[in-house]
């Protein structure tokens, strides 16, 4: 059997439906199955990278061939960008699932938890693989509905409240996206992304098209938590169980938000100056306001959640600068540099923010509270957590030798080289405040005077939690190697090429 991208969707879906059936009768089945499934996905991913896929790989669901060059099947497209984001998703999913084995014991209904987790993974993989705009919407809804349920999983006051807000705002975004899908279909009479792209490249920029673009920016921007569409994020991400927070912050907002924006605005629509400017401004706004909101938080997970907004801002300005340069027809190397910085920051953010949420979960697990005011001196009792948090904090604040330094370096240098001095200065300023707030986190949680001894609930963490945390911090350091040209060409460059060569996506796919 040859490699097929469809397995990325089938396997987690199978898991999601096997768990309620068999897990009901066999104890412990759900944990083992979820871990195995996510592990399989990681291995499968790496297999793709090692064998060197000849991108793009296209699966036509149902086997329907194109008629008169009009594709009628639903396409699953596996190209450099998809591969890159799939790797992120599967890696974080595996580590979170493994972490959850030790962590989730304190909740009832473990079956539902793992089933929903698998469903969410399937949804995200579907979004990333789908070559069809309506299926992007469908898989997006699968992923976010699973995440709505997971946010409310604790069924306490705050969880429910967060989930309700998340659902209403997320639902509004979904409506807007559906509306945009309808408008696109109206204008192009097709749903296939490549086909839409061909039609749009030939056509002119009509008002209806701009309206569609605005709908998509708002819809996916809300999923990616850009300011001012961010208000659900701090509530939802801080209320979910920690492994889920890691998934939400680490990959969900990227897979269903940023990825969709990238795919649509680079490969489908014609890049216009106004749209790229708007996206860059939204990114800069998220970056600055997010971090200014974060630094005053005393709830640990809320602090981390606001940082997700800010770090997504980095990613968006990275790709936004790329868009502006491409639109200006300027130096393509600088555009590639900026986009590479953005994408690199995306996978880095998945790793370090995932790790930080796992650490926050470990703190909550041991100390029973997330309020930084009541913590202190934990470094003595939780050496693994404190050192992994320090690593992740350094990574997010851009201190070498951790990965965050390199991605921020790329973004800032690309901004300077593209002569976006203001953006560079803002990025540096945000870096100060990020560093400040993570120093605050480290100080009040782990150092300071000892306040937590009497309050510790348990004296040791389960092995699975420690394993995930340590693996992630090692990955945080190893990911720095991606800056070396050889490794960069394996992973990052194919993804960047997809975005930089904007019209190639369509031309490559139409023929297949």
């Amino acid at each position, binding site marked *: 059997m040859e490699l097929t991208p469809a397995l990325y969707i089938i396997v987690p879906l199978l898991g999601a439906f096997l768990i309620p059936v068999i897990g009901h009768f066999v104890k412990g089945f759900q944990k083992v199955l979820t871990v195995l499934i996510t592990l399989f996905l990681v291995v499968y991913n790496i297999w793709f990278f090692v064998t060197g896929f000849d991108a793009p790989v296209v699966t036509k669901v149902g086997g329907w061939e194109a008629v008169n060059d009009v594709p009628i099947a639903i396409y699953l497209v596996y190209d450099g960008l998809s591969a890159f984001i799939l790797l992120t998703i599967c890696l974080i999913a595996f580590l979170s699932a493994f972490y959850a084995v030790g962590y989730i014991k304190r909740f009832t209904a473990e079956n539902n938890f793992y089933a929903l987790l698998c469903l969410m993974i399937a949804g995200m993989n579907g979004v990333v693989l789908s070559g069809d705009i309506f299926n992007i919407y469908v898989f997006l*809804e699968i992923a976010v509905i699973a995440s*709505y349920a997971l946010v*409310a999983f604790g069924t*306490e006051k705050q969880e429910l409240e967060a989930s*309700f807000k998340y659902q209403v705002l997320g639902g509004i975004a979904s409506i807007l996206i559906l509306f945009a899908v*309808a408008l696109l*279909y109206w204008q192009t009479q097709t749903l296939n992304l490549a086909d839409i792209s061909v039609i749009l490249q030939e056509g002119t920029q009509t008002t209806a098209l701009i309206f569609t673009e605005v709908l998509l920016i708002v819809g996916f921007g809300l999923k990616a938590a850009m300011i001012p569409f961010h208000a659900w994020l701090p509530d939802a991400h801080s*209320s979910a169980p920690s492994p889920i927070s890691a998934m939400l912050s680490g990959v969900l907002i990227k897979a269903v938000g940023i990825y969709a924006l990238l795919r649509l605005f680079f490969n489908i629509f014609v890049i216009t100056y106004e749209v790229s400017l708007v996206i860059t401004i939204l990114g800069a706004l998220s970056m600055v306001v997010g971090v200014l909101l974060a630094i005053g938080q005393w709830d640990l997970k809320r602090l981390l959640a606001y940082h997700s907004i800010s770090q997504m801002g980095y990613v968006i300005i990275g790709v936004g600068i790329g868009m502006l340069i491409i639109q200006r027809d300027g130096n393509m190397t600088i555009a590639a540099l900026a986009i590479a910085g953005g994408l690199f920051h995306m996978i880095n953010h998945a790793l370090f923010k995932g790790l930080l949420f796992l650490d926050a979960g470990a703190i909550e697990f041991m100390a029973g509270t997330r309020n930084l005011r009541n913590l202190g001196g934990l470094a003595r009792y939780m050496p693994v957590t404190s050192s992994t948090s320090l690593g992740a904090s350094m990574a997010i604040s851009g201190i070498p030798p951790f990965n965050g330094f390199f991605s921020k370096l790329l973004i800032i240098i690309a901004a300077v080289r593209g002569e976006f001095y203001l953006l560079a200065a803002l990025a540096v300023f945000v870096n100060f405040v990020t560093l400040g707030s993570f120093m605050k986190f480290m100080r009040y949680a782990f150092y300071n005077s000892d306040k937590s001894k009497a309050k510790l609930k348990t004296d040791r963490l389960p092995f699975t939690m420690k394993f995930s945390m340590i693996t992630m911090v090692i990955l945080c350091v190893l990911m720095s190697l991606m800056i070396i040209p050889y490794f960069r060409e394996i992973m990052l460059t194919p993804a960047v090429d997809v975005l930089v060569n904007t019209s190639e996506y369509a031309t490559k796919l139409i023929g297949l």
Partner: protein
Amino acid sequence: MMVYIMCFILFMVGLYGVLTRRNLIKIVIGFSIMEFSCFLFLALIGYIENGLAPILKEGMKNPVYVDPLPQAMVLTAIVIGLATTAMLLAIAIRIYKKYGTFDIRKVNELKG
């Protein structure tokens, strides 16, 4: 054209509900109205004047069908909408149990 305007008005009604009502259930209702205005729009874009239902029957020559694709999309979207609404209602009921109120202004423990 009139139908499109009606569709837009429906959307605005839903939006009004979401933005001004304080009751959680009413917000959910407003939200559903918004959703359905969108479904209506989807169904409308596939409509062709005097089109037939896209079903193959014997003895038909060059029939004018309405576009079946938006209908399929609407059906899928309705299923998704159903799931969303069910989730929302389930959460709303649980919120009522915990907070003892349906007033959205009082459900604000998470802020700042």
